[in-house]
C-alpha cells in the first residue's frame, strides 16, 4: 500500500502533474457536477468519484513522502509545489472533510438546486489544495485569494438583491488578505527568496517583524478570529447551510491554522514569551472568550454554532500562540478535532433544518425521539466540544490549558470560563432542541419529523466515529500525524500529565451542568437555561449593545469611512464655492466699479490723466535712487 502511495506521489511530482490532478481536476469536477445538477443520482456519483480520487491523491501525498515539483509557466513564473509533512497532513484532512461534506451537501440539495454552490465548493477545494502545497509564496497568495472569491460567490447565491453579507465578508476577509499581501512582500524582503521552504527561522526584527505580524493578521483573518469574525454570524443567517459546514467549519480553519503554525514553527523564529507570541495568545484568548460569550445567548441554532466556530478558533490560536511545543501540538490537534465535530454539528443543524424547515429554537422543541441517529451524533459532538474526559476535545483542550497556564494564568482562567460557557451553551442547545416534550413548528406535522436520509446520515455518523476514534486512540493523531509533522520529539499522547488540570476541568464541567439544571428550573425550560446569565445586571447591557451590532469592528470602520467621505464632500463644496462664487464675484465687482467710473465725462478723463501723469512723475523721482 505504501508502495502504491509512494509511486503516486512520485507521479504527482512530475512537472504539471500536481497542478493537473489536485487543482485542475477538482475544478473540472465542479463544472461537471454543475452541468449534471438536474440529475440527482448522476451528480452524486460524479461528485463522489471526484472526492474519492482527491482523497486518494491526498493520502498518497501524505503517506508517499510528499510532492516536490517545479515547472515553468508562461516563461516568467515558476510553479513549485513542495509539501512538508505538516502541509500534507492538512491536505489529507481537507480531502477527508471534503468527501463527507460534499456528500452531505448533495443530500441537502434537491435535484436542480445547489449546482452553483457545488461548483464553487469544488473550486474551493482546488484552491485549498494549491495553497497548502505551494512553495512559491506568491502562488500561495493566489490560491489564498481564490478562496476569497469563491466565498464571495457562494454568499451571493440567492442574495443578489441583498448582497450585504457577501460584501461584508468580502470587505473583512479582503482586508485580512491585504494584510497578508503586505506581510508576504515584507517576508520576501526579509528572507530574500520567494520559496517558502527556504524561509526558516527568520528573525523577527524590522522587515521580518512587519512581515510576521502582517501575515499573522492575514491568517487570523482567514481563520475567523476577532476582529475579522463579524461576517460569520451574518453568513449563518444568509448563506445556505452546507456552506457553514464547508467554509467556516473546515476550509478556512485548515488554511488559517496551517499558516499560523508554519509561521510559528518554520518560517519565523518566535520564542515563547516574545511580543508576537503574546500578541497571538491575546488574540486567541479574547476570541475564545467573547465568541463563546456571544454564543451563549443565541437562540438560533446556526448562529449559535457559528459563534462557537469563532470561539473554537480562539482555542487553537491561543494554543499555537504560546509557542510552546505542548501548545502547538494542542492547537493543531484541536484544529483536527474541530473540523470533525464542528462540521458534524453543522450537518446536524442542516438535518434539523431539512425536517423542521427552521433553525430558530423558539419554533421547535424536543425532536430527539423522532430523529434518534441525529441525536446520538449530536450527543457525541456536543460532548467532544465540551471536553468530556475521554473525548478528543478533552485531550486537545487539556494540552491547550497546559500551555495557557505555563504562559500566563489569565489565559488559563479565560480558557476555563470559556469551557464553562461552551458546555453550558451545548447543554442548552441539546436540552432545547432534542430533549423534553415534542413541539413541532407551525405547519409541520409530527409525522414529517423523521430521520433524514442516508446521504446526510452517513457523513454525520462517519464524523462521529472519527471523533470517538481520535479520542480513544489519540496516539495516532497526536504523535504520528502532528508530532512527526512538526518534528516535536516529546510525546503528548495519552492521559494528560497533570492531574490537577484534569480535576479543574471536570469541576468546570460539573459547574456547567449544575448551572444548566438551575437555569432550567429557575427560568422555565431548557431554552432559557442561561437567561440568568444573559439578563444579569451589567451583562444585560453589554449583550444588548453587542446584539445591536455596535461592537462590530466592521461597523466602526464603515462609520469612519462615512465620516471621511462627509469631510471630503465638505472640502469639495468649499473649493467649488471659491471657483464658482468667490473669484467671479470679485472680478465682476471690480469690473462694474471701473465701468461706472468711466461714465463718458471728458473732464473725468482729463483729471484721471492728470493723476496718472503725477503718478508717473512720482515713479521717475522714486527711480532716481
Amino acid at each position, binding site marked *: 500500500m505504501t508502495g502504491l502511495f509512494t509511486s503516486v506521489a512520485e507521479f504527482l511530482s512530475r512537472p504539471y502533474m500536481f497542478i493537473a490532478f489536485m487543482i485542475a481536476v477538482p475544478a473540472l469536477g465542479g463544472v461537471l457536477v454543475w452541468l449534471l445538477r438536474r440529475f440527482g443520482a448522476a451528480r452524486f456519483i460524479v461528485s463522489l468519484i471526484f472526492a474519492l480520487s482527491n482523497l486518494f491523491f491526498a493520502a498518497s501525498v501524505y503517506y508517499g513522502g510528499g510532492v516536490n515539483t517545479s515547472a515553468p509557466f508562461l516563461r516568467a513564473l515558476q510553479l513549485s509545489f513542495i509539501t512538508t509533512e505538516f502541509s500534507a497532513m492538512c491536505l489529507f484532512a481537507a480531502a477527508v472533510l471534503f468527501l463527507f461534506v460534499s456528500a452531505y451537501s448533495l443530500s441537502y440539495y434537491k435535484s436542480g438546486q445547489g449546482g452553483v454552490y457545488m461548483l464553487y465548493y469544488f473550486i474551493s477545494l482546488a484552491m485549498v489544495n494549491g495553497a497548502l502545497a505551494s512553495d512559491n509564496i506568491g502562488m500561495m497568495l493566489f490560491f489564498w485569494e481564490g478562496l476569497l472569491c469563491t466565498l464571495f460567490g457562494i454568499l451571493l447565491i440567492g442574495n443578489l438583491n441583498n448582497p450585504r453579507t457577501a460584501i461584508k465578508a468580502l470587505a473583512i476577509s479582503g482586508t485580512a488578505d491585504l494584510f497578508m499581501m503586505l506581510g508576504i512582500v515584507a517576508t520576501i524582503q526579509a528572507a530574500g527568496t520567494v520559496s517558502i521552504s527556504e524561509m526558516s527561522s527568520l528573525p523577527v526584527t524590522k522587515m521580518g517583524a512587519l512581515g510576521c505580524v502582517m501575515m499573522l493578521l492575514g491568517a487570523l483573518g482567514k481563520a475567523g478570529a476577532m476582529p475579522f469574525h463579524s461576517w460569520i454570524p451574518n453568513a449563518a443567517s444568509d448563506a445556505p447551510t452546507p456552506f457553514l459546514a464547508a467554509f467556516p467549519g473546515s476550509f478556512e480553519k485548515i488554511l488559517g491554522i496551517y499558516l499560523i503554525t508554519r509561521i510559528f514553527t518554520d518560517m519565523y523564529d518566535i520564542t515563547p514569551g516574545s511580543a508576537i507570541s503574546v500578541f497571538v495568545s491575546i488574540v486567541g484568548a479574547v476570541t475564545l472568550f467573547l465568541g463563546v460569550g456571544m454564543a451563549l445567548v443565541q437562540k438560533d441554532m446556526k448562529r449559535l454554532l457559528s459563534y462557537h466556530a469563532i470561539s473554537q478558533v480562539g482555542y487553537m490560536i491561543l494554543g499555537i500562540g504560546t509557542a510552546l511545543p505542548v501548545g502547538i501540538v494542542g492547537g493543531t490537534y484541536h484544529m483536527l478535532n474541530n473540523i470533525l465535530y464542528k462540521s458534524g454539528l453543522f450537518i446536524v443543524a442542516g438535518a434539523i433544518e431539512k425536517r423542521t424547515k427552521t433553525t430558530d429554537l423558539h419554533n421547535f422543541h424536543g425532536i430527539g425521539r423522532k430523529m434518534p441517529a441525529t441525536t446520538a451524533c449530536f450527543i457525541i459532538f456536543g460532548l467532544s466540544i465540551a471536553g468530556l474526559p475521554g473525548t478528543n476535545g478533552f485531550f486537545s483542550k487539556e494540552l491547550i490549558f497546559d500551555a495557557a497556564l505555563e504562559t500566563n494564568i489569565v489565559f488559563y482562567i479565560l480558557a476555563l470560563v470559556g469551557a464553562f460557557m461552551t458546555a453550558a451553551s451545548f447543554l442548552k442547545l441539546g436540552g432545547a432542541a432534542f430533549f423534553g416534550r415534542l413541539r413541532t413548528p407551525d405547519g409541520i406535522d409530527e409525522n414529517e419529523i423523521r430521520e433524514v436520509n442516508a446521504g446526510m446520515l452517513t457523513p454525520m455518523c462517519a464524523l462521529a466515529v472519527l471523533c470517538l476514534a481520535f479520542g480513544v486512540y489519540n496516539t495516532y493523531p497526536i504523535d504520528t500525524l502532528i508530532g512527526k509533522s512538526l518534528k516535536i520529539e516529546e510525546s503528548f499522547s495519552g492521559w494528560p500529565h497533570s492531574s490537577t488540570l484534569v480535576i479543574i476541568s471536570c469541576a468546570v464541567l460539573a459547574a456547567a451542568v449544575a448551572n444548566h439544571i438551575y437555569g432550567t428550573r429557575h427560568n422555565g425550560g431548557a431554552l432559557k437555561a442561561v437567561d440568568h446569565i444573559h439578563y444579569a445586571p451589567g451583562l444585560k447591557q453589554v449583550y444588548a449593545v453587542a446584539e445591536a451590532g455596535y461592537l462590530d469592528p466592521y461597523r466602526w470602520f464603515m462609520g469612519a469611512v462615512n465620516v471621511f467621505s462627509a469631510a471630503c464632500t465638505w472640502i469639495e463644496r468649499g473649493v467649488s464655492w471659491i471657483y464658482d462664487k468667490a473669484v467671479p464675484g470679485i*472680478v*465682476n465687482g*471690480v*469690473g*462694474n466699479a*471701473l*465701468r461706472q467710473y*468711466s461714465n*463718458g465725462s*471728458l473732464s*473725468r*478723463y*482729463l483729471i*484721471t*490723466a*492728470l*493723476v*496718472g*501723469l503725477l*503718478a*508717473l*512723475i512720482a*515713479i*521717475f523721482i*522714486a*527711480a*532716481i535712487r
Partner: protein
Amino acid sequence: MEMLINAIPYLFIAVPIVILIINNLLPASVTDKYGVRGGMILAVTNFAAAAVEFILLAVSGKSEVRFSIFWDYTEKISSNNGAYINAAYFRVNLITLFLMACIGIVMFASNLVAEETVTKKRGSYLNAIITLTLGMHGMLIVTDLFSLYVFLEIVGISSFVLISIFKTQKGLEGAFKYLAMSSFATILILFGLSFLFMTNESLTYESLKSLTIKPNGNGGAFLSYIALAALTAGFAIKAGAAPFHSWLPDAHQSADTSISILLSGIVIKIAGIYGLIVLTDLFSEVYAIRLSLAVIGVFTIMVGALLAMRQKHFKRICAYSSVSQMGYILLGLSAGSKLGLIGALYHIFSHAVFKSTLFTNAAALHERLHTLEIDEMGGLGNVMPTTSFSSIVAFLSTAGIPPFSGFWSKLLIVLALWGSGAKVLGGAALIISIFTAAYFLRLQKKVFFGVTNEKWRTVREVGGSILAGEVVLTAFTIIGGIAFPLVLLLLSGTGLM
C-alpha cells in the same frame, strides 16, 4: 541690389502722394465709386514695398537705409567731418519696415470693410486716409524728435477727421474726446521736447543717443529727467495706456468700423508705442522709463481686462481689449532687451491682425443685424459660420493659444521679462492672461455659441469684401503662428536675436 534697397524707401512717400494727386484730379463721380479701391492699392503697395525692403535689408546686413528728398543730406556731413550730428535725413530700419508692413495689412483690412460700410464721400475718405498714411510713414522715417512730433500731429488730425467724417452725433463726440485727450498729450510732449532742447540744443536721435541724463546733477539735468516723464506720459496717452485710456473706447465705438480698425490696429501703435520705442532706444540708460512702462503695462492689462468683462457693446469690448493688449506691448518694451523689443513688435503685428479680424466681424454683424449689443445676439455661429470661425481664431490668438501668432508674441514677451530679471512680472503677465481669455470667451458665448436667437434665424452670412477681409486676416493669424519659427530662424541668422 544696392540700388533697389536705396530706391524702395522713396515709394513710401511717393505712392501716397501720387494717389492723392490722382484722387483729387479725378471727378467726384469716379472717386465716389472707386475711392476705396485706391486705398486698397495704397495698402497693398505699402505692404509689398515694406516686406521686400525688410527682407533685402535683413539679408544685406545693413542696419538702416538713409535717404532724403529734395536736398542732399550728405553735404552737412562732409562739412562736419563725417559726423551725422545735426544732419537732416530720413531713414528706414528693420523696425520701421516691419511697422510699415503692419500699416499695409491694417490699411488693407480697413479698406475691405470700408468698401461695404463707407457708401458716400469716398473721395474725401480717401484723402483723409492718405493723409493718415503719410503722417504714419513720416513718424516712422524721421530722425529727430521734433519732426516726430509734427507727424504725430498730422496723424492726430487725420484721425479726428476720420472719426467724425460722416458728422454723426456720436462721431463728433468721440472725435472731440480724442481731440481733448490728444491736446493734453501734445502739451506734455511739447513740454518734454522743449526741456530736452533746452539742455541739448539738438533733438536729433544721434545727438540724443550720446546724451546722458543725470538727474542728480544741476537743475537743468533734473528738468530734462522730468521732461522724460512728460514725454512718456504723452506717448502713453496716445497709445491708450491706463490711466490715460479713457478716450479709446468712446472713440472706437463712435467711429465707423473701418476707422476703428485703423485706430485700434495701427494708429495707437504708431502714434503711441513707436514713440515709446524711440524713447527707450534713445534713453536706454534711464531706468525710470522702463520702470514706469512696466507699472503702466501691468495696470493697463488689468484695467482693460476688468472693464472689458462688463461691457455690452461688441466694439466697446474690442476697444477695451486693445487697451489691455497695449499693456502687454508696454511690458515687452519695459524688459529693455532685444528679445523684449522683438516680442513687443510681434505683438503689435499679432494684435493688428486679430483686432482687425474682430472689428471686421463687428462690421459683418452690423451689416446683417444692424445692432452691436451682445445681449440681443445669440447663437450666431450657426447662421454666420465664417464670421464665427474668424472670431474664434482671433479669440484664441488673443488668449495666446498655440499655434496662432498671439501665442508666440506673448511667449516672447514673457521670456523677455523672465530673462531681464522681472520674473514676478512675467508670471503675473501669464496669470492675468486668464482674464483676457475670460472676457473674450464671454463675448464668443453671448454672440456666437449656443442656440440661435429667434430674431436672427433668417440671417445670412455676410458677403463681399468683408468676408474677404475676414478670410485674409484669419489666414494671416494662422500663418503668422505656424510660420513664426521660420522667422525666428531668420532673425537668429541675421544676428538680431
